[in-house]
């Protein structure tokens, strides 16, 4: 793939200037040799006496057009590496007519004028002087022209008002338009030759064999363009994009969310997911993604301020262009958690909502079931009418809490947030500190839970998060309902260095909630110690608990991965394996297992490095930067693991809920399992 100076944002660099100078040199040389240092020759086209302008220009356009088409089709260069002038019809029509008038008056245009001046033509020098004056005149009249409506607000760069964009090939497929254009050109060449034969003063530059060769070559190349297979829609292909393509999309910082993933996350009622429809109110009223809110483009920054860098914001329109611009604008305002829905609503409908019976490709029974579930969720039930108010609640009992958009629970809550909610029956507090400490004093209403009780031996591997049905029973015994917001409270004062009861205990219990599909949970920032040190109420009284049924989710969670999954991604540049154990364990200097070291290619980021004082996270800005250095983009697949899965839950929580990484997976088995399987590779 070619990276151009424009693509690298280096058009202003000295090297680009030199390149431009050399290209200009060739340009000027060819213009002169074609005869364009003569105004009489240039003007000849307007009197049908000398059609050289048409022949040279049209040949050049077709040559470059075919060359560029091949470069795009064969993947030598991606279209976004080449600057395309915005289409602003009004300016281009008026400008074109005026330009034509000036051209025929003077017999010059800017490029040929330079060549004419170089050839000593006084009229060319005077012409260029006029062009300088005309440019200054335009600057002086620019405001007035806009006020008169002769120029659209978005002239040139499209910064102001409605964005101006390049439009290509009048909506026809590029190959078809290229062929038509080529045929028109070849026709025009022969017409020009005929015209010159008729007019006595005719051009002395007959095409002859060159014309024949050029015509044939052009048509052959234009036709052959159809034979190049369209580049595989790699980014969109669900099957398995090549590594190169993935890298490319990561490098170009396209933070996209695939429709399938968004569908799943919307259905699960993820609390920190905000889906924004940026289309018109009428389009929104006609159909929108269930759970999406509508916000007009100009209102986005204000409307999303409270979600800035919290959770995940997904923008969609019918296609990709408008959300991409909105995303860029939000990025300038410091939003780092904005994603685009790949291929927009159109892509979503095509990939998630298209009925199984209408699909060309065969679907596995699981995929078909998934599509039916999506269709039931997103198409079932009546869409609300013109009132674009809060999204309708999802049907699953487990997800209804998420629908309380007004009261979405942040990932980290302050004592200040929790204090007024102590008597809220929809807010439950889980205290994960050691039993004696809990018994001595706890936040009123808090339920004690030993974090080790959510783990056990699963399939022979110790310390694995228990299956969903067992976790659901725990919750049910604790009287927690699927609709409750859960606040998890850990312990440890800043000077209490003893092991356990840290932030990672809270996040481990949070993981258990995630597994049963309970997304409305948060961690009390600073834990019990901060609560108590602020002088907030505590008690030794045990709460009265009324067991309630807690449904068991029908599907396994989407974030836990096994050793096989991890092994397959070793060496995959689009995946980051994050080992959060202490550095000496990573380096293999210490080990509690049969084998020491780490998973080949894994990156070490000890979980303790994310903590500041008192089992609280360091400032998020600092962590954001630290992880930016480790993970290429927010949509990169990240696998976190530690020894038993415990410490990694803290990093998982940080990346997923606080820093907005979209694809974070958890290898629960961790080093305990990896080291015990001698067929898995180890690096030191």
């Amino acid at each position: 793939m070619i990276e151009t100076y424009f693509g690298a944002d280096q058009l202003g660099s000295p090297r680009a200037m030199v390149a431009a100078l050399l290209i200009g040199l060739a340009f000027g040389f060819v213009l002169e040799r074609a005869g364009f240092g003569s105004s009489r020759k240039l003007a000849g086209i307007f009197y049908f006496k000398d059609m050289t302008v048409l022949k040279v220009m049209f040949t050049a356009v077709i040559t470059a057009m075919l060359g560029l088409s091949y470069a795009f089709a064969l993947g030598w260069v991606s279209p976004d590496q080449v600057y395309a002038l915005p289409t602003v019809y009004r300016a281009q029509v008026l400008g074109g007519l005026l330009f034509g008038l000036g051209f025929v008056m003077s017999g010059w245009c800017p490029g040929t004028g330079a060549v004419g001046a170089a050839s000593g033509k006084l009229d060319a020098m005077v012409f260029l002087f006029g062009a300088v004056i005309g440019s200054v005149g335009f600057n002086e009249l620019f405001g007035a022209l806009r006020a008169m409506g002769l120029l659209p607000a978005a002239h040139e760069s499209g910064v102001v008002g409605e964005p101006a964009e390049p439009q290509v090939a009048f909506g026809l497929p590029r190959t078809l338009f290229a062929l038509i254009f080529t045929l028109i050109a070849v026709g025009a060449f022969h017409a020009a030759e005929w015209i010159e034969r008729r007019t006595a003063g005719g051009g002395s530059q007959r095409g002859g064999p060159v014309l024949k060769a050029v015509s044939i070559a052009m048509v052959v190349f234009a036709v052959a363009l159809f034979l190049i297979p369209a580049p595989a829609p790699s980014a969109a292909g669900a099957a398995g994009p090549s590594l190169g393509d993935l890298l490319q999309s990561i490098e170009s910082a396209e933070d996209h969310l695939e429709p399938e993933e968004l569908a799943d996350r919307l259905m699960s009622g993820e609390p920190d997911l905000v889906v924004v429809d940026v289309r018109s109110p009428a389009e929104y009223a006609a159909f929108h993604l269930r759970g999406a809110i509508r916000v007009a483009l100009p209102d986005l920054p204000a409307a999303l301020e409270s979600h800035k860098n919290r959770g995940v914001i997904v923008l969609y329109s019918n296609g990709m262009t408008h959300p991409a611009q909105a995303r860029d604008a939000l990025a300038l305002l410091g939003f780092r958690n904005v994603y685009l829905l790949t291929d927009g609503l159109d892509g979503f409908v095509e990939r998630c909502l298209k009925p199984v019976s209408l699909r060309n490709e065969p679907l596995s029974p699981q995929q078909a079931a998934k599509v039916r579930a999506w269709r039931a969720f997103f198409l079932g039930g009546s869409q609300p009418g013109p009132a674009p108010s809060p999204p309708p609640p999802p049907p699953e009992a487990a997800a209804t809490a998420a629908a309380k958009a007004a009261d979405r629970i942040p990932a980290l809550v302050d004592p200040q947030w929790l204090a007024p909610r102590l008597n809220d029956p929809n807010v439950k507090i889980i205290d994960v500190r050691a039993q004696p400490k809990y018994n001595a004093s706890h936040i009123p209403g808090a339920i004690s839970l030993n974090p080790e009780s959510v783990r056990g031996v699963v399939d022979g591997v110790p310390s694995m998060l228990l299956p969903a049905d067992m976790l659901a029973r725990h919750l049910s015994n604790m009287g927690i309902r699927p609709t409750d917001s859960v606040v998890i409270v850990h312990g440890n004062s800043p000077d209490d260095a003893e092991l356990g009861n840290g932030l990672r205990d809270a996040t481990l219990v949070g993981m258990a909630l995630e597994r049963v599909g309970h997304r409305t949970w948060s961690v009390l920032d600073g834990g019990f110690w901060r609560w108590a040190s602020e002088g907030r109420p505590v008690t030794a009284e045990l709460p009265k608990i009324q067991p309630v049924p807690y449904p068991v989710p029908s599907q396994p969670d989407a974030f836990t991965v096994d050793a096989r999954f991890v092994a397959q991604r070793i060496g995959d540049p689009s995946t980051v394996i994050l080992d959060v154990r202490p550095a000496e364990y990573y380096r293999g200097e210490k080990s509690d297992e049969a084998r020491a070291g780490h998973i080949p290619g894994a990156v070490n980021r000890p979980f303790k490095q994310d903590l500041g004082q008192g089992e609280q996270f360091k400032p998020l800005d600092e962590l954001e930067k630290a992880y930016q250095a480790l993970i290429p983009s927010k949509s990169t697949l990240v696998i976190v693991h530690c020894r038993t899965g415990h410490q990694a839950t803290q990093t998982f929580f940080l990346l997923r809920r606080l820093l907005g990484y979209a694809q974070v997976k958890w290898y629960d088995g961790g080093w305990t399992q990896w080291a015990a399987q001698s067929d898995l590779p180890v690096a030191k």
Partner: protein
Amino acid sequence: MNDKTKSSPTGNDDQPAAYWNPYAAGVLLGATLLASFLILGAGLGASAGPARLGAFLEQCVLPDHVAQSDYFGAWVEPGKSLLSYYLVFMFGGVFVGGLLSAVLARRIQPGVERGKAFGAGPRLTLALLGGVLVGFASRMANGCTSGQALSGGAMLLNGSLVFMVCVFAGGYAAAWFFRRQWHD
């Protein structure tokens, strides 16, 4: 018209070299344009040269005015000359390339190009007025025959193709009024 060598300035024996076959010249011009796309990531451009020069000259006289103006103002960057722009360099390259070719082809022909029956003064007046219009229109359309018609056309940009058609529409519509300047 390569045989019109009435003013062979470089000596009677030295006939200027013949022009290239127009289609061959077109292929080479297209190759240059393609190189520009693939190296710079942008097409050819000529009108930005005079425009930048105009902005630069105006800035020498009225720096504050230029910095505050709607159009040129967007080009002003602190610590950077208005002439420090890749298309200014390209314009310089066109001049030098043209000069090189004209010298090698013995085609340096100082004078005012016009029909014998037309005065040099009126011809220069038309060249000046046409230049003013071309300079103005190039800014309006955001490009000239190089940037819009050639480069935009090769990218199949709708706006550029429309521009190309309008240039010839405007030219042919007005051609009759300016025909006399070429009458011998």
